[in-house]
């Protein structure tokens, strides 16, 4: 398959690793990135000498103000013992490591480097929820912040516009949450590797042991409707519509296509990459899609020659439940206004025709913002190579997967298509 655009040289992914995503009081950014790096080394089937790495691209958003330390490129290259090789930090809010990945691809495609390490890290949990909310709001447009908008607030407003235009409601968003939890239950690296049903059962057990009134939730949706169990954050975004505050790191190893077999007999090829930028909330003509995602998708489809229906599995940036539904439409998987119906019909489940966020997504796997873009690639790496364990999708001849990242309120979006040959 050959698209209209071309990379100067093919690029392959030959290793991928991540730390567990969670809240860690005793692990800092360096610790987490070292964990991701060590796991990545183990996934390179024929081995890699870290001294052969030509360059590092590192995505990070908040460490300047949450950790009060900037200039993370050389801190990490020193940590891994790869100085004096160049280390470059990329920032694109929640898409920071997705940008690092693109830089890595371009560096190899240009012929300048042969082996590039790409990753991301974030350390967020040592700050209060209010501080994190305030810090992340720096990635919104300045007008949004002064109007009081938080990130959940921006997506809450987006949801109200979507509801009015397409007739969806809060119950439809719950389908996304329930699916994400069901998938994350099968992912030991996920921050919340429990289903909603598991959470309900543990709350009921706790109430019994404390001799409190036993909650009478009949199903998952009744639990999610209960304001005590699921309080509002920024209406109509409730706690279970929002990704958590997380710490974590992830990385992947990229090499020139013609040398990929030196590292593994089973590489993944980077066949499509795309990136877009988007206007602030006030300047958007329509709040129910992200122009940056649509542009990124168009670029990636053009490069790959693939169409949305060719993509068999994808990780998309579900920072909020409504976001996942909109991405499904912007990426062309479903028509505008049809995304919420597709989720309701189970089409995006692990065993559905188009599995989405098999890792549990940002909602349940966790969202250490700078680590998310390459973290999504780790999931697709596992799925396409048949190494996803209990959450391995049952699709026959699985060979094309994709990842989608979104930074800020849609200011930066990326789309990447990987192929196993």
């Amino acid at each position, binding site marked *: 398959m050959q698209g209209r655009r071309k990379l100067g040289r093919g690029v392959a992914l030959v290793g991928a690793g991540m730390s567990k995503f969670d809240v860690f009081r005793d692990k800092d950014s360096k610790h987490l990135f070292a964990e991701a790096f060590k796991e990545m080394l183990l996934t390179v089937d024929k081995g890699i000498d870290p001294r052969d790495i030509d360059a590092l691209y590192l995505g990070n958003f908040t460490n300047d103000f949450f950790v009060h330390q900037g200039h993370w490129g050389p801190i990490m290259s020193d940590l891994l013992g790869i100085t004096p090789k160049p280390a470059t930090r990329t920032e694109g809010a929640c898409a920071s490591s997705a940008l690092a990945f693109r830089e890595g691809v371009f560096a190899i495609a240009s012929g300048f480097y042969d082996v590039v390490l790409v990753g991301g890290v974030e350390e967020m949990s040592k700050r209060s929820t209010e501080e994190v909310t305030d810090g992340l709001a720096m990635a919104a447009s*300045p007008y949004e912040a002064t*109007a009081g908008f938080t990130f*959940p607030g921006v997506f809450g*407003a987006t949801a109200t516009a979507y509801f009015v235009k397409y007739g969806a409601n809060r119950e439809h968003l719950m389908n996304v949450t329930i699916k994400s939890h069901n998938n994350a239950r099968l992912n030991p690296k996920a921050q919340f590797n429990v289903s909603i049903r598991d959470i309900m059962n543990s709350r009921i057990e706790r109430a019994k042991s404390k001799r409190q009134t036993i909650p009478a939730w009949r199903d998952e949706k009744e639990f999610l409707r209960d304001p005590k169990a699921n309080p509002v954050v*920024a*209406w109509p975004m409730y706690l279970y519509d929002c990704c958590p505050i997380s710490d974590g790191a992830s990385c992947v190893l990229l090499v020139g296509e013609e040398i990929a077999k030196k590292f593994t007999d089973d590489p993944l090829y980077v066949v499509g990459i795309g990136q877009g930028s988007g206007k602030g*909330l006030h300047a958007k003509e329509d709040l129910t899609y992200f122009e940056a995602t649509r542009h990124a998708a168009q670029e990636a489809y053009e490069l790959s020659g693939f169409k949305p229906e060719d993509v068999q599995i994808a990780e998309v940036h579900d920072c909020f439940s409504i976001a996942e539904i909109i991405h499904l439409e912007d990426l062309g998987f479903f028509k505008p206004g049809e995304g919420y119906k597709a989720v309701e019909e189970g089409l995006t489940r692990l065993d559905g025709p188009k599995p989405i966020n098999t890792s549990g997504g940002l909602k349940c796997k966790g969202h250490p913002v700078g680590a998310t873009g390459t973290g999504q690639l780790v999931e697709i790496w596992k799925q396409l190579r048949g190494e996803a364990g209990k959450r391995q999708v049952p699709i026959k001849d699985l060979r094309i997967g994709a990842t989608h990242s979104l930074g800020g309120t849609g200011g930066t979006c990326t789309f990447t298509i990987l192929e196993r040959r």
Partner: protein
Amino acid sequence: MEKRPFNDVSYEQFLNEEKLMGSKCQKCGALFVPPRPICIKCYANEMEWIETKGNGKLVAFTCIAIGPPFMIKEGYDRTHPYVSGVVELEEGARVVARIEGVDGSKPESIKIGIPLRVEFLHRGKANNLTTFLAFKPLDL
């Protein structure tokens, strides 16, 4: 004629003077609120300041229970959510703003499409004065 530069500093000064101002392209007539220094429709160089009438309608909104520190200082919290929204002005441009005079703890009572009127919220003291753009329902 108003000579202030077409930037956010001027925009905020105008808000402080209780004017919601935008920039209008003298060539193609496109209106931008907040002001843009460049017409992104036709790329002409000549812009002029226009004062909007301050009338609009609600396009989208959210009721925020967990806000940033400056909103918490105003007394908003999990039991007293505030409302932020997107407002389409009579002139066509859209702005993001606080929505006052509605009950953030009863989101179902707030309807998209309701007519709104501009308000200016002055906060802080003499040397550190900030004015926030807000709208409230017209029938209030």
